[in-house]
Structures are given as structure tokens and as C-alpha cells.
């Protein structure tokens, strides 16, 4: 369908579908949506670049390496500490490193400066276990051979130096950056050492970035069950753990957009099986434990944990459910959370009425169509004007999205929860579900919305002609 604000960009029509209309069946058969294609130029898209996806999402959470940007200052500066992928390390998230190329480097090349930067940084921080180098638009365009420099630097400093060809213009969104991150880590690190330990009952958690310590909510549950976690790809992870990832018996894949790549590559090369899970929500978390348990024959242990944990949170969830019952939700996330979270909303008595993703691929949308009810609007890569029109038309009780969209929602008088970095969090696992419910309750039931409805003063003597 075409929104009113899109009259002059009719190509947006293919990116907006209502489940149950125009060939998209109520049973989600025949639901097709245009996605993972270039953004319409001039749109205020929420999409980022390949560098952001690689540096910010996949590489950035690795806690004990020097995070080096090869490029201009801005790319490094903006990726400094904005994503709460926490770790138990005093070094992590505190520093950014950048080769800081200037005009003369653009003309004469930046390779020497990169090499020098890596050497200097590793001298300043001898405790770092390696260096991740992320490429940017201009250094790629001028033809700097970052891969070669990384190799030379590695010989000089005696630690792994990994080069990510993640220049911003590659691909149509940050999604390409996730792919580059996966491939690079797989090619350069995974399997580079062969420890002789016993890895029975071992898994990797793949595609969890430990946002606001999410991992603390579910790791102990797997461990209680009798399963060891070798590697977290890539939340709260050491570069050393990435090297031995291939020793695990099973990959447990959470983010099925940004990290399926490495699970697929490991299946191909090491015959490592993988299962997809959702670690948010009560029934999802229980299913994840059951699925992993089944693989190892630990079903009894899983049921014991599930019973204890669900009983613990039940009264709290019931309290929030009473306060949230019947509310409607517009959920707009990077990709998978838009299909992970409709289940969670239902567990709280709420219903998703609009679902959107920034960089979802076809498989993400297939899952979204399956999860949402008939009549739900599904939109790909919405621009700012579309978001505004949708919020004004559908008037959801809650909008779940990211920092950039938060203040638009507020200006429109709409309750909001930041699903990217969480308001407080963590939101994963059983205990995280209580946090999520509490944050949603805060967002919806705070008194300010009542003041806005009943006590806002009409605008007087307004010089701004657009304000009615």
C-alpha cells in the first residue's frame, strides 16, 4: 500500500504490506514485501552503513582487542560507546583508536599511518590481545591495502591484527557489515588454535551481544542444566574464545540476521550443528532451554529449571499484565526483534499492530508475517515521515524503536521504549522479561501522558505558521 506522505515516491508502495490484504493472506501465504534493497535517496532512513554494522555490532563487543578505525576521525568518534554491549573488562568500551587520516593521506595514501597507528596503540596498551582494524569509505576509495598492512603489523607486534573490509558504501545497510564481520572472524580467527581439552556438553551462544548484560539473565540457566558455554559471539567475549569456537558441539543462534552466517560456515567446515532460539520472553526462553536440552539429553534438568524460573517471575508478570492488557504496539527494530517480540507482547496481554525493520531480509519478513495477526501493517526501512504518519494514524499505545526515533515519538505524545539499547534492561531471559514489562509499564502509565491529553495549553500567539 502507499502512505499519504509517499505520493511522490511511489516505489515505497512495495515496502508496505497489510497482512490479509492485496494477496497477502491472513495465514501469511503470499505475503511479499520489498526489502534489502537500496534506500530511496533523500529519505530520512534510520539505516546505517556497513562500517556501523561491522564495528558497532559484530566486532565492537570483543572486549580485549584494540578497536582501530582506519579512516577519518568521525567514523571512529561516532562509534564510541553508544551501544551498551557490556563486558567484564576495564578496557572494553573505554577507548577508540583511529588512524585519523587527513587530506594529505587522501592524496598520498594512508597505509604508513595505519601501520604506525597499530604499532603505537599496541605499545600504549600492551594488555590488549590483538587489534581489529575497520576500513572506511575514503581509505577504500584511495586503494589502501589494509589487509597487507594488517599482516605486516601482526608480524611487528606479535599479536593478531584482523582487517575488516567494511567500508560504509558497501551493501544497502548495516546488514552487510554483519556479514563482513562474520566472514572475517571466521576466516582469520576461528580454528586458529587447537586446545586439547574436553569439550563435551559445550555450546556457543551465537548472535548475542550482551546488551546491558543480557547474558547474565540466561547463561547460568544453561550452565545449571549441565551445558558449558565456550564462546559468546560476540557479547562479552575475548579474542581467545573466538579462536576455539569450533570446539563447541552445538551453535545456539539467537540473532538470526547478524550471526547466522558464522553458524552456516561452521556447519560447512566443522560439521557443527546449530539450532535457532529466541532468548527473549517466557515461552521462548523455555523452548530454547528445551531445544538445547534435547540435543544433549538433559530434558529433565531443563524442566526443573523452567519450572523454578517461571514460578519465580509469574506474580510479577501477572501484575504488569493487568496494567498493560489490551494495549497496542508498533514495533520497529533492526530486524529479528520485530519477529522475536510479538510473542512477548502477547505474554503481557498486548498486541502488535505495526511491525517494521531497518534492514530485514526476506526470511525476517516471512517470520514477521507468521507472528503478527491479520490487519497488521508491515513496513520495510521506514523513513521519518512514514513513521510520523503511521503513529498518527494507528495511534499505538507503545512504540518500540531506537534512540533516533524516541524523541519523534515523544513529540507525538506516544509512549516509547528503546528496544535497541533498552531503557534499563537487561530484557533477555526470565528476569529480563520482568525488566521489560516494568519499562513498558513505566512508559505507558506515567502521569505525563494524562497531562498532555487533559492539561496541555492551546498554542497562543504563535509566530510559527505550521502550528495550528
Amino acid at each position, binding site marked *: 500500500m502507499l502512505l499519504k506522505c509517499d505520493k511522490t515516491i511511489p516505489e515505497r508502495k512495495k515496502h508496505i504490506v497489510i497482512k490479509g490484504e492485496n494477496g497477502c493472506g491472513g495465514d501469511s501465504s503470499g505475503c511479499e514485501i520489498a526489502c534489502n534493497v537500496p*534506500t530511496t535517496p*533523500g529519505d*530520512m*532512513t534510520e539505516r546505517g552503513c*556497513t562500517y556501523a554494522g561491522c564495528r558497532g555490532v559484530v566486532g565492537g563487543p570483543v572486549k580485549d582487542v584494540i578497536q582501530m578505525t582506519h579512516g577519518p576521525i*568521525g567514523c571512529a568518534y561516532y562509534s564510541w560507546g553508544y551501544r551498551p554491549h557490556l563486558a567484564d573488562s576495564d578496557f572494553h568500551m573505554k577507548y577508540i*583508536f583511529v588512524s585519523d587520516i*587527513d587530506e594529505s593521506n587522501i592524496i598520498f595514501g594512508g597505509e604508513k599511518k595505519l601501520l604506525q597507528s597499530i604499532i603505537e596503540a599496541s605499545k600504549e596498551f600492551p594488555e590488549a590481545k590483538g587489534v581489529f582494524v575497520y576500513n572506511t569509505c575514503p581509505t577504500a*576509495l584511495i586503494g589502501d591495502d589494509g589487509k597487507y598492512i594488517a599482516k605486516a603489523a601482526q608480524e611487528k607486534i606479535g599479536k593478531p591484527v584482523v582487517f575488516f573490509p567494511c567500508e560504509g558504501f558497501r551493501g544497502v545497510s548495516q546488514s552487510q557489515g554483519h556479514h563482513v564481520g562474520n566472514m572475517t572472524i571466521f576466516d582469520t580467527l576461528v580454528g586458529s588454535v587447537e586446545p586439547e581439552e574436553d569439550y563435551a556438553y559445550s555450546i556457543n551462544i551465537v548472535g548475542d551481544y550482551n546488551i546491558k548484560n543480557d547474558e547474565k539473565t540466561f547463561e547460568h540457566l544453561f550452565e545449571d542444566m549441565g551445558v558449558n558455554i565456550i564462546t559468546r559471539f560476540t557479547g562479552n567475549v575475548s579474542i581467545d574464545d573466538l579462536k576455539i569456537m569450533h570446539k563447541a558441539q552445538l551453535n545456539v543462534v539467537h540473532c538470526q540476521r547478524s550471526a547466522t552466517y558464522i553458524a552456516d560456515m561452521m556447519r560447512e567446515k566443522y560439521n557443527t550443528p546449530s539450532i535457532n532460539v529466541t532468548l527473549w520472553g517466557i515461552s521462548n526462553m523455555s523452548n530454547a532451554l528445551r531445544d538445547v536440552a534435547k540435543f544433549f539429553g538433559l530434558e529433565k534438568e531443563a524442566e526443573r529449571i523452567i519450572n523454578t524460573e517461571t514460578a519465580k517471575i509469574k506474580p510479577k508478570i501477572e501484575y504488569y499484565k493487568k496494567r498493560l492488557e489490551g494495549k497496542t504496539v508498533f514495533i520497529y527494530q533492526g530486524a529479528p526483534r520485530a519477529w522475536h517480540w510479538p510473542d512477548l507482547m502477547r505474554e503481557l496481554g498486548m498486541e502488535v499492530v505495526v511491525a517494521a525493520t531497518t534492514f530485514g531480509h526476506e526470511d525476517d519478513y516471512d517470520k514477521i508475517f507468521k507472528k503478527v495477526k491479520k490487519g497488521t501493517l508491515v513496513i520495510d526501512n521506514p523513513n521519518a515521515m512514514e513513521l510520523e504518519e503511521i503513529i498518527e494514524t494507528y495511534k499505538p499505545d507503545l512504540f518500540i524503536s531506537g534512540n533516533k526515533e524516541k524523541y519523534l515519538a515523544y513529540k507525538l505524545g506516544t509512549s516509547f521504549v528503546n528496544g535497541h539499547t533498552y531503557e534499563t534492561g537487561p530484557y533477555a531471559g526470565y528476569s529480563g522479561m520482568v525488566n521489560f514489562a516494568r519499562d513498558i509499564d513505566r512508559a505507558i502509565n506515567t502521569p505525563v501522558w494524562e497531562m498532555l491529553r487533559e492539561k496541555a495549553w492551546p*498554542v497562543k500567539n504563535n509566530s510559527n505558521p505550521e502550528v495550528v
Partner: protein
Amino acid sequence: MSTVTKQKRAVAINPTRSCAPIGAMLATYGVHGALTINHGSQGCATYPRHQMARHFREPIEVATTSLTEKTTIYGGRDNLIAAMENVYERYHPTMITVCSTCLSETIGDDITGIVDEFIEGHPDVDIPIITVNTPSYIGTHITGFDNFLKTVAVDFPVKDKPNGKVNIMPGWVNPGDIREIEAMTRKMGIEGIFLTDYSDTLDGGIYRPKPQFPKGGTTIEELRDSANSLATIALQKHVGGEAAEIYEKQYGIPAYTLPMPIGIENTDKFIKTLSKVTGREISEELRDERARLLDAIIDAHMFLTSLKVAIFGDPDVVEGLVRLAAEIGLEPKFALTSSDFKPWGEDMMKLSDELGLDMEIMMKSDLHELYKKIKEEPVDLIFGTSKGRFIEEDLDIPLIRMGFPIEDRFGYHRRAIVGYRGGIYLVDKITNAVLAKKGLVVSNTLLEKPVEGAD
């Protein structure tokens, strides 16, 4: 005796500067109904939007031409034309700023030529479209703002009847600062044309229904009329200084480039200049504010005198803060900026000589370097942005937050550090940080911990 040092390392570790496009975006936010199109990768628009939203807590909208691999080979012309059509037809803005990026500059897009081509092909387009060069590999975030002002100074003003107003370029400050500067001019009965005024657009209210463009901002008419003002006062040398010169050369309006009005003397300079160019007396109200600032400094001096301070941030902000620090009895030991502006080092040396300071003036430096210096030679206080948080935490030294960005505290964008009232705010803030940190306050006196002379 102070010294100027310049960092030797190639690698920058925790720099205090970002890149140019965000400056053009911020300046554009100060024009009512104006929008920016960033010609580059999506990240070049999304990252700055994210950064500004964290600081201002407002919706930040910037369009992108979404360049991809293909356009790096064939050029970004088609995307830029399509973007201008898209933004013009859907938003009907009052003005469009097209700013460049590393990507579009390196592939060699002729942005001005493409904009001209667009305007020729669209006779219906009756709004100004300006281009600002903002490759990230030249200068810093303030360069983008400065380049924007130079473009405005050349493109907009239309000579007509004198308007009796004063052009004021506040520079890269906060909405609260612009409001304070505006209040000071109003108290003298003077009307200013602010180049540009993002006080309301980036610290706005809730209006139902939501206006399409945020309320406030300088109008296009005011930009045109700026050729007819009595004078131009640039309050940051590095953001607006050269643009003010353009006004003088092209339209015969005298240019005054002053230090940022932080503290007594710098604010005096601003007020006296306003008085000089308009012939208006300094108002009683401003005299009272000045007297209250002096009173606050006297009340605080037993807590503050001879404490050591490290100051980092944008060049003009640091320069203003060093003078304020000296006025309230602090001893600036380090003054750091990431920029490589030569005149800044010279100006800082002059300032230091005048004030008799003994500090290290650190140019093209970064916060890792500052951390190491402070570890060797401790200070009592740090003035700077949220990016200095790790020094505050590691060395347990209070960081008094000021400048851009403040992303780990609330409401700083609303506060003014300029003017007499901004000075009072700073004295309060600094003194409270000292009292909270240092020990026992009884009967308006301080017992410092640990007790001097005791074991």
C-alpha cells in the same frame, strides 16, 4: 610560563573532535524549516543524527543520498538529484543544505554543479539550496559549521535599507547559550539576527498537533536582511570569524570577532561591543547580573582559589573557560583541543601571558594523552564534555560537564555558560563539585579530607 605542545603519535586515542558534516547539520537546524541532505553513505547521516539526539534529546532529521558501491563507480549525481526532488516535494522546506562527505568528495562529485542542474530543471523550486563542503578528512566538526556560515554570508544577504539590528554568530554552543545571548541583547533594547538560532528548534516544547518543522529558528528573510545590520559580532573566532569578515568586505558591515562571552571580562567585551555598535547604554539589569556574578565569585573564593584544573573541548570554548577559571582563582594546568588550528595556539599563549598562567597548551591532542598527563601531575577539577568520563572515573577527579556532547547527564543543553548569568551557573556548579568531593561543610566553611597536618 606556559608551553604549546603538539601530539607526536599518529594514532588518535579518544579524540575530542568529530567530523565536519555534523556542523553543517547543526547550523541548518538554526534556520526555520530548513533541512539537510547529506551526500554520502547512510552512516554519514545516521551517526550524527544519533549523536545529536543523545545530546539534545530532540528528533533529529537529516536526509541522505544513500550512496552505495555502484555510485562510487558511476558518481552520485542521480542519487543527489533524486534526493533533492524527494525532500523538496515531500517536505517543502524553506531551504536545503547539501553537505558533502569523504565519499562524495573522494569520488569527485561536482555538488554545486549538480545542484545548479537541479534548479535549472525545476523552475518550480523557489527555495534556496546551498552546498557546504564537509569532507571528514579536513578540519573538525566545527569546520562544517564555519563553512556553513561562510556560504550563508556569500549566498543570502541582500543589500537594502538599514534595519538597526546586529548580526550575532553564537557559534557552536547550546540552545541555553543562544537564549542567554538573546536575552542580553534584548535587555539592551537591541534586536539581533542570529546566525543561526537553534535555541528553540533543538530544545523545543510539546505542541499538539506537532508542527511539521520545529518552532523557532532564524528565517530566510532574516538571512537576506542580514546585509542591512549595524554590525556582525562573531562570538567564536573559529566558528563565524571568517564569515563576519565576509560581511564586512561584501556588505560594508563592521565585523567584531570576540572571545566567547564566558566569565566577567569576556562578557564585558560583548556587552561593550553591543553598546558601541548600537549607541545604546548598558542596561541596569545587566549591571545587576554582573554584580551578582562578582558576588558569587567572592562567596566562593575560599573554596576555589588555587585549585588546579584541566580544560578540554572546542578551541573557542576552551579559551573562554581558561579566562573564567583564572577569574575565579583556579589555576588552569592543561588546556587541550584536538584541532590543529595554529592561531589558536598563539592566542592561547597570549592569553596565558596576560593572565600569568603556567599551563600546557595541548594542540591536536587527545584524551588519552590528557589522562597520562593528569596522572603524572594531578588536578582538582576537569572541565569538558562527557567524553572525559573515563578520566573522571579512573582518577576520581570531578568532571564539570560543559560543551558538546553531554550524553551521560540530563538537561545540559538547556543551561547557559555564557553571559553573567551563565558565569553564576558555572561558579555554583564548580563550587558544589568541590564541596561534594572535598569534605565536611559546616557553617559555610569547609573541612578538607584528609585533615592537613594530621596523620
